[in-house]
């Protein structure tokens, strides 16, 4: 097995040995969606939301949560801990290419976020009848670019934070912002229009996800911005990455 594959395998195992991380990243979003879905009022058609149920309207925000938990609440802390405890330094004394550890970490994080999202979509459909995304291609593109953009935010913190505590401070700020603009705390429909519009451009772009979910092709500009954020922040974090 190549060293990268081996590293990825171990990172997956380590994630699954941390029950809190598994619950937070994989189970919590689905549990919240189903919990809200158990409230009859939220399953009634709502004219203020253009005739769809609140729970259908809220589903994309739950996806934002699943991505934010992995990309901002967990991943930066893991890498900062590796740095704090000299694990990155030790890796540096081996022939493994420097990016491999980050690559493995990113792969595991993205994979986990995707599985969490899949759980939300499938459980939402089966248990409380949330329709599947109506514009599947647009939704897939918007979601992948959105996840990547959120992870690139987390990656900047992961690249620089000297220890887990500092990582936590900065990623909490990012986490709260992403959750807020993702309509997790307060549904977007209850926020002023201006904020709802900005939210299209704040990773992962919840408005765009909602559009694609309800069947509208996602607008191009927010997608381009997500791509640009990913590329830009990805390059920055690779450039400024601190090994110790």
């Amino acid at each position, binding site marked *: 097995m190549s060293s990268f594959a081996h590293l990825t395998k171990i990172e997956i195992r*380590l994630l699954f040995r941390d029950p809190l991380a598994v619950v937070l990243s994989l189970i919590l979003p689905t549990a919240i969606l189903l919990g809200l879905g158990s409230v009859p009022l939220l399953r009634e058609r709502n004219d203020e939301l253009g005739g769809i149920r609140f729970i259908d309207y809220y589903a994309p925000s739950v996806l934002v949560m699943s991505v934010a938990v992995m990309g901002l609440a967990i991943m930066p802390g893991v890498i900062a801990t590796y740095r704090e*405890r000299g694990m990155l*330094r*030790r890796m540096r*004394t081996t*022939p*493994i290419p420097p990016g491999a550890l980050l690559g493995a970490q990113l792969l595991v994080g993205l994979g986990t976020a995707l599985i969490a999202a899949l759980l939300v979509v499938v459980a939402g459909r089966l248990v409380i009848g949330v329709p599947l995304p109506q514009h599947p291609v647009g939704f897939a593109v918007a979601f992948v670019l959105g996840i990547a953009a959120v992870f690139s935010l987390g990656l900047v913190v992961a690249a620089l934070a000297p220890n887990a505590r500092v990582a936590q401070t900065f990623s909490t700020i990012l986490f709260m912002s992403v959750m807020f603009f993702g309509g997790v705390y307060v549904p977007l429909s209850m926020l002023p229009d201006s904020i709802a519009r900005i939210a299209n451009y704040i990773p992962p772009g919840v408005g765009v996800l909602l559009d694609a979910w309800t069947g509208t092709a996602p607008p191009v500009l927010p997608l381009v911005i997500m791509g640009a954020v990913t590329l830009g922040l990805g390059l920055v974090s690779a450039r400024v990455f601190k090994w110790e």
Partner: protein
Amino acid sequence: MAVIEVKDLVKQYGSHRAVDGVSFTVEEGEIFGILGPNGAGKTTTVECVEGLRKPDSGSVSVLGLDPRRDGRELKQVLGAQLQESSLPDHMRVEEALNLYASFYRDPADPAHLIRMLGLEEKRKAPFAKLSGGQRQRLSIALALIGNPRVAVLDELTTGLDPQARRDTWDLVEEVRASGVTIVLVTHFMDEAERLCDRLAVIDSGKVAAIDTPAGLAARAGEEQRVRFKPSRPLDDALLLALPEVAAVDRSGGQVIVSGRGNLLSAVASLLAVNHIVAADLRVEQATLDDAFVALTGRSLDHP
């Protein structure tokens, strides 16, 4: 054959010269010690050898490779055990070794290292559950997993209990016996004296001396002291007449004779001729500790 050549190495942090013109060579198959107090520049020096830091000036060559230019190649043949480097809490001993083995072209057998380092019972134990000594042994195993020709061991026994320290020392000798050249960074005298074939004493970023432990001790002065309690009074003049004797002091009932050369046998035959029996006879020689004080003007253990 020189395996490591360090020449005029300089490394500066801000206005502080951590390493200030360090030069030494390490021969194949030896245990070479780098001894000095905390903050003397030992770790920075070996980090330049390992390719973790870029020297400001000077040159480093390890097995003919330049650690900065040929970093990837060097890391295939140099194993490093770092100070204060841990593993993820949930990673198991065996997993760590298998993982690190996958990083190398021609790794050692993880099962063999686990046996050699006495970690068999802990094969499945997560890192968080290992004792300090076990972590240190795992750390050594990880430094050896790539089948290195050179191993750099930094502050190997800091924080270990006396038994674990001695076990670790035995282990280092075994590793050397298997043909690995070892650079041992330490601030412990006894460790350097016990393990090292040669050592460089580093102080304030400079090499104060390079020699064998015995050679360094001898530099501190050839002077020896013989102490004893004579069975009956003894005239100082008799002792001072011996060419080996430099001075005679008395402390309570004890006579303290200092001098050089074959001091003990000269004093012993004088006592025998005069039918004096020496009680509590003790010979004191300069130690590596004395050498360190002589070289740097301060003691390592009591700064």
